[in-house]
């Protein structure tokens, strides 16, 4: 090699290295804490969506940090406290408001454009504001409805196309199911002691007009009626206390649960368990609004997931682009929200005709048209988590023991301290 060719080669190498370094410096890396990547059922979906986003945005790299659902709030709070939060995180339920309390969530009002805001269902951002500022963006919507197994109902001599509309009708149906099929759990309700259980049971408390967080709410007649009803359900063997909601899902797929109070995602779980086609599923299962109780209204809760951005993020523009892509892009809606979460999108209207067609199913229609309007706000905030422990402990006492209801209500009241 002559000295001239050596000089040319080294110049090319230097220019190449400089270009690579400059390109790397331009590339933004976003950290994304989420449980979608931690769960086997949703991991392929979220990874595909992240890959698609990176392909569309070659200047942004997503570093996904998989954290389990039950751990994410704790880890995020600790990371916020230690000054090391991710750029974007997936969050849900009361955890969103807990994080907001740290004051480290970036208000999204300055990022969201008018067109995106207009495209959202107004209800999808209700309850996502703190001190008047939008602190979380709705990713998926997953309200709860009363699922029913038509085959079980038919065996019990009930009309499978006529699910119960009132709590009295529900009790009669449960009795018929218990009598005809003793090995079937008539009603699947989550009565474990965790914040999610209170969220899940909140619409049932509301059905009786109860609000345990209100002043003397735990000792109100409405709350006592709710607790007495829960005890009645347990004493008659209509519920199976202690099971988490996820433990009922494979059972209803095997016709072992008649009614299940669960979110829209149940269809995906049932079909992945029993491999039913959509047609067979719709012939076999249905979903409707909560039976009306003493309050005269049906209620539901919104259990969807949200996306938050942290105010310490140095790449807020890229972070917002990613949040918007996950929640509103046709690719993410089709390949994650519908395919893996089996949930509703927060958009008022499907962004493409193909998606509109995919959303036109009996289950999605029932949730969008009948159940979503019954969603009631759950009183999230700093008092919710300790309150949930106190209230669900009381519910468990009512369901599993013989302590007088008045005494249980007083004990909840004392532990709530309101």
């Amino acid at each position, binding site marked *: 090699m002559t000295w001239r060719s050596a000089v040319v080669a080294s110049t090319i190498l230097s220019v190449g290295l400089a270009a690579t370094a400059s390109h790397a410096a331009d590339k933004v890396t976003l950290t994304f804490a989420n449980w979608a990547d931690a769960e086997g059922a949703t991991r392929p979906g979220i990874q595909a969506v992240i890959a698609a986003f990176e392909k569309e945005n070659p200047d942004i790299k997503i570093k996904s940090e998989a954290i389990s659902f039950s751990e994410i709030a704790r880890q995020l709070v600790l990371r916020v406290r230690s000054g090391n939060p991710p750029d974007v995180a997936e969050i849900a339920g009361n955890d969103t408001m807990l994080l907001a309390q740290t004051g480290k969530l970036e208000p999204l009002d300055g990022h969201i454009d008018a067109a995106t805001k207009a495209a959202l269902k107004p209800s999808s951002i209700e309850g996502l504001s703190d001190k008047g500022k939008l602190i979380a963006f709705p990713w998926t919507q997953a309200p709860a409805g009363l699922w029913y197994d038509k085959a079980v109902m038919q065996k019990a001599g009930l009309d499978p196309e006529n699910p119960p509309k009132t709590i009295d009708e529900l009790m009669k149906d449960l009795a018929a199911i218990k009598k005809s099929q003793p090995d079937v759990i008539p009603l699947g309700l989550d009565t474990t*002691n*965790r914040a999610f259980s209170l969220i899940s049971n909140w619409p049932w408390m509301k059905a009786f007009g109860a609000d345990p967080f209100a002043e003397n709410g735990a000792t109100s007649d409405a709350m006592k009626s709710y607790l007495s009803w829960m005890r009645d359900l347990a004493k008659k063997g209509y519920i199976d206390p*202690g099971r988490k909601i996820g433990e009922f899902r494979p059972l209803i797929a095997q016709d072992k649960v008649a009614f299940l109070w669960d979110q829209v995602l149940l269809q995906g779980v049932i079909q992945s368990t029993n491999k039913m086609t959509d047609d067979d599923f719709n012939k076999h299962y249905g979903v409707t609004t909560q039976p009306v109780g003493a309050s005269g209204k049906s209620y539901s809760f919104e259990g969807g997931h949200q996306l938050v951005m942290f105010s310490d993020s140095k790449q807020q523009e890229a972070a917002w682009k990613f949040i918007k892509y996950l929640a509103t892009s046709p690719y993410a809606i089709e390949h994650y929200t519908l395919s893996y979460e089996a949930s509703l999108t927060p958009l008022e209207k499907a962004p493409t005709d193909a998606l509109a067609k995919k959303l036109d199913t009996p289950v999605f229609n029932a949730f969008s048209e009948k159940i979503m309007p019954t969603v009631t706000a759950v009183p999230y905030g700093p008092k919710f*988590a300790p309150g949930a*422990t106190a209230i669900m402990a*009381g519910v*468990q006492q009512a369901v599993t023991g013989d302590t007088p209801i008045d005494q249980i209500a007083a004990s909840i009241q004392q532990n709530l301290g309101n």
Partner: protein
Amino acid sequence: MKAAPARKNPERVPWIDWMVLPTVGVLAVVIGYPVIYTLVLSTTKYNMLDMVPPRYIGGGNYEHLISDPIFWTSLRNTVVYTFGSVIVSSLLGLALALLTESLTGWRFRSVRALLLTPWAVPFVVVAFLFRYMYLQNGGVINAVLLDVGLIDKPVLWLNDSALALPAIMAANIWAMMPFFFLLLSAALAAIPNEVIESARIDKAGTWSMVFHIKLPFLKSALFISSLLMIISNFNDFAKIWAMTQGGPGYSTTTLVIYVYRLAFENFDFGYASAIGVVWLVLLLVFALVYLRAIRMNP
């Protein structure tokens, strides 16, 4: 053989004393700092979500603790769970060690391997195993009891306030019993043959042999292993959390479960630290007794 005499007036080499400094330093960081910080936090109002520094409130958390019924329930449950599990599993371990003592060769090895199996199962697996066995619908325990006609409807093992704690204790005893079996078997094997032989020559019966010869020899092994297990069970989180999360109601809430909920669900680190201090003091008492026992029975 004559034991070597203890050194009288050993020559002091001061620089050797300084050699312990690195160890003391590591202990100060790893154990001392968290303990002292917990003591400090226990005198403050400190919620991690508030993003404000801890505020000194003196003995406020301790006053709250005295009037907190959940704390007292948790303490009672901890004591019942710990002592109940240790007493029953040590008695079972002792009985099994005595029963299998006469087995030799492959029979002893097979029985010992079988009896030690639960000890090899991770605690979380034990918890889930029993949780599914206890299920009201589909649990094997209820199925068997119904089949043999001992019960006419499924028992809510983990969902009855009165049964939940004993049910978890049964799982704990199952998992812990091999530890006692192993230790006591070893202690039995260490009893000098001459003692056993002379007792036989004196025509000691089986019960007399157990109560007057073997048990005195096993006393220190039993005492030390029980103390170790008391300390271990005082901190047992995995089994209870996986089986009941402290429910139904507060019927299986122990101190460790309560502290976990306060610290990591409510982020109330001030009050959680106060309970942690009480818990630490109780454990220190057991640890001191243990150290004293070790010193007396080297």
